[in-house]
Each structure stands twice: as structure tokens, then as C-alpha cells.
């Protein structure tokens, strides 16, 4: 084993003591620090270190070495195998994001969403299929077309994204539905582009001053003035929340779209219309809980665990239970980026609330930590 000595420029092939400073044999010292050198080499390095000047130089390297240590992740292959094994015997799913562009007449797409497989019998002119990694964001949407109406609906754990013929875009949250006319956007001047929404959707509207864009929920109508906004309509609580990312919208009661609006909601604002019909506007609000999901994340703001549980259930298609009533009211503020595994999200929530979380398949249980 030849010793490669970088320091002895004038004495090729002959081993010489190292020259201090400029000509350290970094390769060898790296091996030494990494514990990858032979005993003989280690001995050589130690001899070299006897010189205090070399020692000083080495300390610097040691310092660098120490400071670049990090926590290696713990790869849990048992859990990984269990997860993988459960997918092995299923046919390859056509699990995709659906971006649906259609010409009004020629499209007739129908598919149904059984657990894992999707059957497409489409004569669609242009169906773009894209894969999104991560099973948490399965986005197959049920799409029905009749002569007059189109409807796209998502189930728990699903999102859907669609581009409308007018260039506007909708991203639909899990357990939600949008419905609109087959000839959407093609009406004459003054004919509104209207979308019926149940649940939660994000709308990026292509502005058209002669064809107002409206989102109609059971409680309210939201009319665009050229915007990106989220409408969250809560069926049971009979309330609506509108978060405006950019631009402005006006808020009307369903029967009063022609008249003056209840509110104008602009960029950064959050509007709430509750079951008693009271509309409140919060300017410069924290919109993260309302829009984080549109980028695949999730956010909560002083949200009681019982509501967090409901949201997690909807988004990940889980059955989330809070076993102890003491826990249910604990409030969580958190934001989770896209591409975080459910297990991580659950752990962080549990840690924040000093709770214990357990998951078995689709069932998740939060408990108080036993003392």
C-alpha cells in the first residue's frame, strides 16, 4: 500500500514528514477522522500530530468535522414493509391528478372510484393525466356529465383540480362538489359564469368584465372581481368563509345577488357569514388555515382538537377519534407543508397537545398521555 504524500513535492516516492500548513494531506486526514484508515496510517497521523503546529491545524479540521455531524434519520423498514406489502396485491391504480379540458360536446367521461382502481372509458379529446406522488393526495374526482350540467365531486382523502373552459381554475377540497352548466362561459354579455359549490374550493378566476364569475353556496353568493379566493361552506354549521388571496370579491345573500353586497372582501381579508346571517370581515387575517391545503399543506389556527380531528379525517380519509374529552378542546396552531407523511403530522400534533396518538390502518386515536 503506497502512501500518497502530497506534501513532499521535491521528493517523489520518498516519504517525508509533512510540511506544515499548505500541504496537508486532506485525503488522509479525512480518512483518519472518518475512522476509515488502517492502523498503520492512524499511527502515522498520530506521529504527525506530535508537532504542535500540525496539532493546531488538525484542531481546525476536527472542529469542522464535529460541526458537520448531524442526526441521521431512522429508517423504519418494518413499517415501510408493512405499508408496501398492503399495496402489492392490488392492480396498478390509475391514481392521478385529473386536469380536465373539454370541448363541450365531444367529452363524455365517466369513471367510478372504487378503492384502488379506476376504469376510464373516455372519448375525451384532451385528458392530461399526471401523477402526484404520495397517497395522501389521491385526486380522482367523480365527474358526471349530462346534457346540461357538469359536476365534479371528491370523496374524503381526494382533491381534484380542474381548468374551466374560460381559463379559470378550481381546486376542490375533499368531500366537496362543484356543478356548472355545460356551456359555461359561453353565454353572451352579462351572462354570469356560475359555479355551485358544496364544501370547499379554491378559485382562480380569469377575469371577464362582461361575464361575472359567481360561486353559489347554500348560504351565499361570492362574486369575483378578478381574483384568487377560497370559499369554505359548512353544511352543518350553515356558515361560509371566504379567504381572498388576491383581488377582490363581493359577498351577497343567495336571493340578493343583484343588490348591493353584504361585504367586499379584498386581498388578505377573511369574511365569515354565520348561520344567523351576520357577516364579519377580518382584514389582514391569517389565511393559512384556509389556503394551505391548496398547495397540499394543512394549517390550523387555535383550532380545537375535535375540529382538527375532523379535518384530518377529511383530508387523509381517516377515522380520527379523540378518546378523552379533556383533549377535545385543546387548541392547536400549526402549519404543515406539502409532502409530510400523515404519521409525522399526527406525531407533531400529539406532541404539541401533550397527547398520545395511535394509528391502526384508517383509525387514529388521540389520548391523554398517561402519567
Amino acid at each position, binding site marked *: 500500500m503506497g502512501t500518497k504524500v502530497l506534501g513532499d513535492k521535491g521528493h517523489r516516492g520518498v516519504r517525508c514528514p509533512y510540511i506544515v500548513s499548505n500541504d496537508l494531506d*486532506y485525503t488522509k486526514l479525512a480518512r483518519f477522522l472518518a475512522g476509515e484508515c488502517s492502523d498503520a496510517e492512524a499511527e502515522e497521523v498520530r506521529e504527525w500530530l506530535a508537532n504542535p503546529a500540525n496539532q493546531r491545524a488538525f484542531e481546525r479540521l476536527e472542529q469542522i468535522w464535529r460541526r458537520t455531524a448531524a442526526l441521521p434519520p431512522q429508517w423504519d423498514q418494518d413499517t415501510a414493509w408493512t405499508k*408496501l406489502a398492503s399495496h*402489492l396485491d392490488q392492480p396498478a391504480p390509475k391514481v392521478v391528478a385529473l386536469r380536465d379540458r373539454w370541448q363541450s360536446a365531444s367529452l363524455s367521461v365517466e369513471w367510478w372510484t372504487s378503492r384502488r382502481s379506476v376504469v376510464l372509458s373516455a372519448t375525451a379529446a384532451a385528458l392530461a393525466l399526471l401523477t402526484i*406522488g404520495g397517497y395522501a393526495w389521491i385526486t380522482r374526482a367523480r365527474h358526471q356529465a349530462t346534457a346540461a350540467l357538469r359536476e365534479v365531486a371528491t370523496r374524503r382523502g381526494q382533491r381534484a383540480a380542474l381548468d374551466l373552459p374560460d381559463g379559470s381554475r378550481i381546486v376542490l377540497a375533499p368531500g366537496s362538489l362543484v356543478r356548472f352548466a355545460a356551456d359555461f362561459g359561453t353565454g353572451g354579455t352579462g351572462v354570469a359564469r356560475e359555479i355551485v359549490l358544496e364544501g370547499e374550493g379554491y378559485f382562480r378566476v380569469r377575469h371577464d368584465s362582461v361575464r361575472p364569475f359567481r360561486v353559489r353556496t347554500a348560504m351565499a353568493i361570492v362574486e369575483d372581481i378578478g381574483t384568487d379566493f377560497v370559499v369554505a361552506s359548512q353544511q352543518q354549521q350553515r356558515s361560509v368563509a371566504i379567504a381572498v388571496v388576491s383581488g377582490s370579491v363581493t359577498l351577497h345573500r343567495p336571493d340578493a345577488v343583484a343588490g348591493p353586497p353584504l361585504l367586499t372582501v379584498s386581498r388578505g381579508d377573511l369574511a365569515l357569514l354565520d348561520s344567523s346571517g351576520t357577516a364579519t370581515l377580518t382584514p389582514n387575517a391569517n389565511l393559512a388555515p384556509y389556503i394551505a391545503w391548496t398547495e397540499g399543506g394543512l394549517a390550523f389556527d387555535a383550532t380545537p382538537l375535535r375540529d382538527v380531528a375532523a379535518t384530518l379525517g377529511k383530508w387523509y380519509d381517516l377515522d380520527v377519534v379523540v378518546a378523552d374529552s379533556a383533549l377535545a378542546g385543546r387548541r392547536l396552531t400549526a402549519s404543515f407543508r406539502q*409532502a409530510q407523511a400523515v404519521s409525522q403530522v399526527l406525531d407533531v400534533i400529539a406532541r404539541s397537545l401533550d397527547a398520545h396518538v395511535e394509528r391502526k390502518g384508517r383509525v387514529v386515536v388521540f389520548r391523554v398521555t398517561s402519567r
Partner: protein
Amino acid sequence: MGIAAIRNGDVTAFETVFRTYYRRLCAVAYAFVDSADTAEEIVQDLFLKIWRQRESLRITDSLQAYLYQAARNASLNHLKHRRIESRWSERVRAEDPPVARAADDDLVESELSRAIDAGIAALPERCRLVFTMSRHQGLSYAEIADALGISIKTVEAQMGRALKSLRERLDPAN
């Protein structure tokens, strides 16, 4: 041979391969993608794809080399398609318990760590990969060599190069 068995649909053989290579492949992916979860996802998707296409599996030489190459490719693909900048995926650094500091309600800014981080980011791609796999993931030279498909000598040289570069960044005059 393992591959033939897998081609025939032998789940046990597949599991053996999985368990043999899972951690190392995660380490490879993690060197590219910064997020442990994403790394695991990439590797699991990879294995799932292999299983689904098992009948047309064609691995001519080493299964190990094939898997490492596949993991690298999948990671690079992921980086290409990643939509959201992940500023916060840096790893949490471990350190020996700090020498007792003077009580201070403010942090002493460490020029050193900042310089080191900048230095690592400035390393050439392969050099950085080797160095971070060693320091951030604690992999041995042999493991790194396997994972990246290079020789151990190359790993040694890259480690030396990284160390030199970082040291010269900190002590430019020297």
C-alpha cells in the same frame, strides 16, 4: 436467484430484497432530497414499481447497482418535479453537549457554522453528496461508494477535497 423468484411473484424473495436494501436506498435518496419522508416515499414507490413491472424485469448485472441507480434517478426526477421550495427541510444538527456558556438570554451568533454551511453548499455536486452522506448520514466510505456507483478511492479523494475546501474557507490566509 432472487430476481427470477421476484419475476415469478415470490413475495418472500421480494421482501428479502426490500429489507436488504431499504435503508441504504433511503440514504441515497436522502442525500438528494433533504426530507426523510420524501426519501422514504421515493424508495417505496420505487419498490412498488419494481413489483408491478416484475414480469418485465431485466437486470443484467448487479441487482445492487441497479437499485442504487434507480434510486438516484428517482430522486433526481423528484427534484425536477418538486413544486414547492422546501426551505425548512434542512436537517437538525446534532452536537456534543455544548461547553457551559455564559448565561445569556441571546444567542451567540456562530460565524463558524454559517461559514461551514455555505462552504458545503458551495462544494461541487458529487463532492457535496459524498461529504453529506458521510457526515449527515454517517455512512461508511464503502457504503457511499456503493450508493453512488463510484470507487472507494474516489470517495476518499472527495472527502479530502471537501475538507480542504471547508478548511480553506475558514482559514483563507493559511
